[in-house]
């Protein structure tokens, strides 16, 4: 095994043990070392990939197409603007272009994914028939209406009567959704933990 291959195995192995020491002991210098090392490595990685992106996306094509000088010139104020407090306004035109293009693309995306398709699907659900049972369809109907009521009427100061019950029901549906998200997050975290323990067992030659 070469030195590089050994480092590729034993550095992650030691860092994994350092991180797990937080769980089985408490906050300690080894855990802190692993934590700051990962942050530092990730920062270096992000910087290098960012620079490579500028080189590949703008500087390389510049030789064949001079128009790429425009994004490069627009990018310079974004770098020096935040460093130069007095003249930070120089970054605003570039930011406006980035935000403008992003918003334009976002509206195109949202109109289909977040607005048209969900409304079309929910509105076309029959009570009896379709992909779901009638019970499911009624739950979807109640959840949709009650969550809409919750978001629309929450800020009204004295919502009482049927509307308040509906709004409360909406809140409970949202809590169920958040609970489900928490459960799936826990599931993912266990998979990560399992992957690290599997790695430790492999390095130790047990698996």
């Amino acid at each position, binding site marked *: 095994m070469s030195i590089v291959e050994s480092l590729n195995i034993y550095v992650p192995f030691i860092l994994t043990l350092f991180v797990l020491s937080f*769980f089985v002991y*408490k906050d300690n210098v080894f855990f802190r070392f692993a934590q700051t090392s990962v942050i530092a490595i990730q920062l270096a990685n992000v910087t290098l990939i960012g620079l490579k992106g500028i080189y590949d996306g703008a500087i390389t094509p510049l030789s064949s197409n001079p128009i790429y000088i425009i994004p490069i010139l627009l990018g310079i104020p974004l770098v020096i603007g935040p460093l130069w407090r007095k003249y930070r306004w120089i970054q605003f035109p570039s930011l406006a272009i980035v935000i403008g293009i992003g918003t334009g693309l976002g509206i195109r995306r949202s109109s289909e994914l977040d607005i048209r*398709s969900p409304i079309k699907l929910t509105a076309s659900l029959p009570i009896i028939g379709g992909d779901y049972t009638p019970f499911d369809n009624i739950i979807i109907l109640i959840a949709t209406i009650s969550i809409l009521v919750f978001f629309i009427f929450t800020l009204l100061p004295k919502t009482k009567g049927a509307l308040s019950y509906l709004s409360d029901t909406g809140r409970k549906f949202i809590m169920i959704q958040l609970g489900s998200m928490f459960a799936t997050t826990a599931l993912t975290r266990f998979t990560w933990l399992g992957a690290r323990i599997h790695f430790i067992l492999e390095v130790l030659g047990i698996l």
Partner: protein
Amino acid sequence: MGTKTSEEGIFSFITRIPRRITWIILMLIIVVSYLVPFILPIEVSQSTYDSFDAVESVPEGGYVIIGIDTDAASWPILGAIFKAVNHHLGDKDVHYILCGITSWDVPGISKQIIDENDLGEYGVDYVNLGMLPGMEIAVEAFSGDLKFLKNDYYGTSLDELKLFEDIQDANDIDFIIDLATLGAAPDWWVAHWSVAYGVPVLDCTSAHASPAAVNKYKLGLIPGYIAGMRGAAEYEALVKLPGKGTTDMNMISLSLTTVVVFIVLGNIDVLVEKLRGEKI
């Protein structure tokens, strides 16, 4: 946790177990699940069946984009999914284009994909573009011109690569496998490739990012999704290639059962104390 005012509840010992002991118990259970192999039955979900059918419909010699939009931590999950899907695509002699939009870990993960899977000859059967800079703008630009980045990840001009001889834009791409746990990358692929050009997007994701995939699947915007280790295990069962997904599902089942037992016992204790009228 709770403040006891009179005699202890029947399961009150649960609330007194130190956190580190709980973790050690869980880790030991994970170790045991790896050391003592056993097979739990796997029920394949409809979304995985649909994903299988979508992959089945990729034409012979087709062009497939692999979107790497995940971090290194989630790679054990998505690596297992990709291995099973790649095995399924194995006979079709497809061409792969590897790229990433939202993840800074693209270089490492793409290297791992290349090392761990037989993708064929570089430049002919697969190409690694690395990270496409520009987030959503890059996804849109890529759909209009596959060579909007002039070079691949290693600096070779795309004009010199045989794979790019016959393809120009999204119309020439047959399928997208998005390995995504980060951000809105699947939404971008769907909006700018699937809705705009009709390219099917298979959303391969982790469990915690799956609610977004479920939405798109129910809306009919994606043909299917494969979520988490369970999705990997289901796909492995469909392609008859038991692997990491299957073994890790055993680990997840055992460890989560332990957590559920802890939660139930703790809650019974709280409930009993409440029924006794004690202040929790």
